[in-house]
């Protein structure tokens, strides 16, 4: 039996927390709230949900769109409406997931349901919550392909990442690291080019700056000009050639 009837969550730039939540089995229903800036993410997420084969107990996941993150008064009213519609549920049967989304919206959610059980994601990929004084944890198993699909990307038969413009990234390694964080590693034989930086930047826009690790491993020194274009969250590692 699942502890919650419904869990509310904001969607953020990162996809892993929400994926972990809906795979945790802690509730039968999940309401994921996307701001209009994340509309594209929502479309990918809905497509992913449509294709997903859950097995015996498929959760009911509902995606809702609210206004812009910049229009606080509207988003506040919309979140309130979402909560008010489910006001008949008992406080303890509706949980709020506080790990994803903009802080101001999470806190609004908390302000609207101060007594509701709070749910967090802890490393490594573990859903953590406390209910009526009891704390429990639920480790989650996620596959890389699953995470990529939730943002509209795929791997081809050879395991290469297929970007949305159909470009295949054969030298991109994608895995969950030891802390079960998503990690993209692009290995470049020569000097990394501006295009390499652009690919990583686009991936970080898709999965969030903090939603994954973005690494470029190069055997050659990167030019100053190219390295300047890399944002701080893109790590560039120089690897000496093995003799």
């Amino acid at each position, binding site marked *: 039996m699942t502890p919650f009837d419904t869990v509310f969550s904001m969607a953020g730039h990162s996809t892993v927390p929400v994926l972990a939540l809906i795979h945790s089995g802690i509730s039968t229903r999940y309401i994921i709230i996307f701001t209009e800036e994340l509309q594209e993410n929502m479309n990918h997420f809905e497509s992913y949900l449509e294709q997903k084969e859950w097995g015996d107990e498929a959760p009911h996941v509902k995606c809702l769109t609210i206004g812009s993150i910049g229009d*606080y008064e509207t988003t506040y009213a919309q979140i*309130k409406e979402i909560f008010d519609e489910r006001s008949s549920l008992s406080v303890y049967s509706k949980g709020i997931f506080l790990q994803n989304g903009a*802080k101001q919206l999470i*806190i609004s959610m908390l*302000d609207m349901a101060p007594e509701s059980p709070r749910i967090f994601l802890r490393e490594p990929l573990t859903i953590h919550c406390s209910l009526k004084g009891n704390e429990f944890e639920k480790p989650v198993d996620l596959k890389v392909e699953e995470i990529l699909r939730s943002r509209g990307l795929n791997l081809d038969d050879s395991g290469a990442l297929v970007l949305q*413009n159909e470009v295949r990234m054969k030298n991109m390694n994608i895995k969950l690291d030891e802390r079960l964080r998503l990690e993209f590693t692009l290995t470049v034989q020569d000097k990394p080019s*501006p295009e390499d930086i*652009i690919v990583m930047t686009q991936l970080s826009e898709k999965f969030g700056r903090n939603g994954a690790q973005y690494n470029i491993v190069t055997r050659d020194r990167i030019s100053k000009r190219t390295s*300047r274009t890399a944002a701080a969250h893109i790590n560039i590692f120089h690897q000496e050639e093995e003799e």
Partner: protein
Amino acid sequence: MTNSHLYCIFNANDPTPTAIAIRSLNFKTATVFVVNHKAFTDKQNSNLDRLKKWINGSAKPEGWPEGWWNPDWDWAEASPQVSMEYVDELTPEIFGNTTADHTFVDLKGGTKAMSIDLMDYANERLDNPQFIFSNPGESLLLSKGVVLPRDVLGLNEIVFLASGYVMNEEYVPEPRIAEKINLEFKFTTEIKRKTKKARFDGNFLKSIKRYVPQNQPARALMEQAFLEEFTSAMLSVSEEVSQSVAGVRFIDPSFQISKESAEFLLNLPYKKKKMVTKPKKKKIYDTSLELLKDSTPALHNHGYEASLELIRQHMHIMEIDALAILTSGELIGVECKYSSYQPDDVHRIRAICQRLSPRSIPVLVNSKLYSTNVYNVAELSFTELGNGIKMIRQLSSQAPQGPQETISLPVEQSPTLSAKPPQSNPVRRPKAHRWTKNLYKCPECDFESRLNKLNEHLRENPTHWSVHCGICQRALLNRGDLASHEISYGHPPSLPESGLINVQATTRIERPTPQIDDLKNKQGKGRNALHCLPLIEIAIVSASSTGGTFAMFKRAMSRLQISMEHMDEALTLLGEKLGFKINDKQNSHWIEWDSGVESEDDAEVEKYNIEEDHTNLNQMDSPLKGKRDETIRSLLELYKKSPRSFSEFAGELKKYGFPVKGLRKILVKKYSQIYNFEIVEGSNLYASGSQWIIWK
């Protein structure tokens, strides 16, 4: 009078949100919790030090000799009385006792977990706490869902908090002048090395009382310098901009570093050369070098102000051409380039902005006629500064496009074309022989170059190309343009993919003339031209009336999906019917109208009108009038599908046995509005002298 107290968490990685919270709602007192200070890194400690300096209203550290620090570099002290509370962790006990009437808790700073804890403990310990979230330019009242607009911090405060630099600006636009610049702005275009550049219009410069040198190089230098002020002025008139300055120098508050910078910059040979041109300047310059050698207070108490000012102007370690702060708290950092520039210039402004603030947007304002984003930096044409902030937002939100793409754009390749090069053409201009198959010509002007250059040219001059986005009117040259249009310009192209025309195929100089056994034409796919004569007729008439070239005609055929395979036969048939021939000219005179063919009919009609037909159409009896009306209408319906000359129309009507005297007048008066056409003098279409029915 009530008093209010603020509690907030020090944001260790960037002190700006904490400063914004302190300044947000006119608090009388404020408590800043510094959580787990023992674990702070050097950078976090430096951030804390910066917040303390900001609270005191000056970045000035110890060690500056008297008179060297400019008081204009300071700002107003923070209005609440601020106390810093160092705590190991957040607990309910941290709040202590307060005598304030209202307590506010700002939840912006710290991690999500910290904010949630602070909220819980405040609810536990405080009496009806109000939770707020202070953003730049606004405060969110979280418990009420209300937004209160607030002033943002000053540009110099934001710069200091985020980067640690003191700001020394050279130009602050006066609102009245900025408004005039905005209203009067005009530009002209100049072609240099076949590239169009925007230039400030001379009359515009005079209208804002700007001295315009007659000497060309001097004028170019003046305009280059003016671009910085212009950018700053244009940005300042935007409602979204709260402050804008130009010629900004960033000074490290450390006296030693600033002094060394001044020594270095003032001793640069070009600077020395510039300074010794006039005796007065030289004296100021020499004194400034002396002061830098010995900065003991005795030397500079009195009479050295000009030299000290010169030193201050050279104490910076970084500079930027224009800087603006938006009401949202974001900074716009601008590098201005009036002449050409290199990718390094783009990267430099990006690096400077990254160093300045995480909330800064780099922009390179340039003199191109279009704006773009190649390296994830907005490259904005100064001609678009009137709408600058919107453009910058649009460009900055784009995903960067690969730099190679903009230099050599992918062009659709026709397999047949690449498989078989076009045949040599005897009517080619001599230049084409030198360039052989790699030369392409703009359909509208004399620009000739290789394909990638032609693409650039067509992008800079979108009116020279016939396929545009219906929303922004930018030229669409290939499928790549269609794919990237939405990313680049924020909207999908309003053009079906089938509407694209192959640039390579249609602009090649070696294109064969429309001969019947034209090899190139045989590659075309689509409808048989011989089956589409009415459509081709419309295109011919349209090309004649608008001065369209053969290239344009071919593009029209492509859009209509009519193959060029049997086009020669079709044109020959139509030429016989309508009276024209096709020559091999590249310009708009590729259709030669043969007035003789038409004039026979015309003359016959005219003769009929004048000599034989004495029956006025208006004098006909009613049943005949009804039949004539029906015939005219059906003929007009037919002619709508296939435009013909007025004389042909009159001839047709005559064949049906109706008089044609006064026909033109009746057509205009009775039918032209219903069917939406006009009868145009032949001279407007071609030199045959005939009249044509043209559908609007």
